[in-house]
């Protein structure tokens, strides 16, 4: 199964808000660790290296000018 990029969340605004909420009180270093923990937890949940590589490639592209 390829990486799903079609909308899948019932309430995307709620996710966005939850992420902002989690980072709100954090300094740069703690924010980075939070994101890293989140990525690692989700990566393990997905558990499929092909999908993870695909996501990584897409995410890497996303910052190109």
């Amino acid at each position: 199964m390829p990486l799903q990029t079609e909308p899948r969340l019932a309430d995307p605004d709620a996710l966005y808000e939850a992420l902002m909420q989690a980072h709100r009180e954090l300094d740069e270093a703690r924010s980075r660790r939070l994101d890293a923990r989140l990525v690692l937890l989700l990566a393990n949940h997905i558990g499929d290296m092909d999908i993870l590589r695909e996501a990584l490639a897409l995410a890497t592209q996303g910052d190109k000018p």
Partner: protein
Amino acid sequence: MTATHQNPRYAFRRPAALGSAMPEHARVVIAGAGVVGLTMALDLARRGVASVVVDEDDTVSFGSRAICWAKRTLEIYGRLGLGKRFLEKGVTWSRGRVFFQDQEAYGFDLLPEQGHEYPAFVNLQQYYAEEWLVQACEATGLVDLRWKTRLAGVQHNAHGALLHLTTPEGDYTLNADWLLACDGARSTVREALALPFLGQVFRDRFLIADVVMHADFPSERWFWFDPPFHPGQSVLLHKQPDDVWRIDFQLGWDADPAVEKQPERVVARVRAMLEGASGLAAPPFELEWVSVYTFRCRRLERFRHGRVIFAGDSAHQVSPFGARGGNGGVQDVDNLGWKLAAVLAGEAAESLLDSYDAERILAADENILNSTRSTDFITPKNGAAHAYRDAVLQLARGHGFARQMVNSGRLSRPATLHGSPLATPGGEGLPLGAPAPDAPVLVAGRADWLLRHIGADGRFTLLCFGAVPAEVPGGITSVLVTDDDRPGALWDHAGLVARRWQARPGDALLLRPDQHLAARLHAPEAAEIAAAHRRALGLI
């Protein structure tokens, strides 16, 4: 001299060739009398091959240096007759703990199952291993150890190499049919052949402190990331015999080695570590040996250059995390010894030695990959790497998946020689090229170990489950494994041989003299066995 060990001094023996205008001749010359060179000489001697070993020094290593001897290395020393000494003198361990800041993140066991002659690791100072190797080499009568003999020049040619040797009593030349370069990371032979030694340098420094003290830390590997007693850096603690404890402090790239080696500074670091780790006042201790090092991961493009062959650190270098340097070097020797002996005996062509290149480069790359990954974890290169490293350590406390990502060193495991040109494709079970797994057996009612019966006679072994084929070609020792008590058989009373080898009745597994799996046959005809044997000798 250190507090617990006095280095022996080996006598310089005046060689007959000194003062002669004609070069001396030797079939095999080994450059370097370190762990790898001495093991090479001993392995060859046990196969009946004489060698000359040259070394600039006249003693064993100063300081403990390599201390972690892995299971596979111990099995090789078992075959060479030294296994028992390692077990008796060394500190056996298989468990480790990883700490992050002020808490334990997790603990691990490298060999949770029973039924192996050797443990996951034995810690032992390198100088003991070298002393025993010197004694064992001398006892064979086939190893000509030439101390205080510096290799001043190497002229490589199609027939081997002409060596220029410098001794306290004068210089002489020696024609070697084969030159085995076991002369370490700063190999003279490698420089003489102008071979590039390329790889990655790590921008970090570490302090090794060996301290002598009575302490009751368990026989475990303890690793701290960012502990309160050494903030922002890592610390590693290992136990050695003689009440010697190895402590590695990560210092960072900006540390000044000369300053960091000052005894009062080291003592303060050690005291802080001991008090931080135990929560108690530090016991009295004495510094035994201190060293500051940086490291790199690199290798030669090829290990075989005609009749000059590189083994150990002269061929490949890794970071120390994972104990893959010395253990990798001993496995090089294990791979090379039987092949060179077969070539010298005329049983195989010189091209068999190309398989040493193929197999040990694969293993070296595996070691370099693992030790590079460990180093990247231990020394994060930027803010993101730091955040991920800490995130893994934070998650490890509560979640199994993250424990698997904690990388304080992926400890040395023997290489499976995937894609070996010497393996006969086909069959199923244990992967081709795998090192033989050990298991307990009973022989005529006595407890014994399977590995003692594989390769101890220097030959190929056909490990036969349930029945020995009617005809087994010459040059191969057949060993019968049975699930009941039969005369002349190894009784697999616990069923562990069949399980670990994934073997069925009728399987006949061909093992090379270095105990790596060469063919998986089933109820084979003699011709099939002979073909697999010829392939394993590089004749097909």
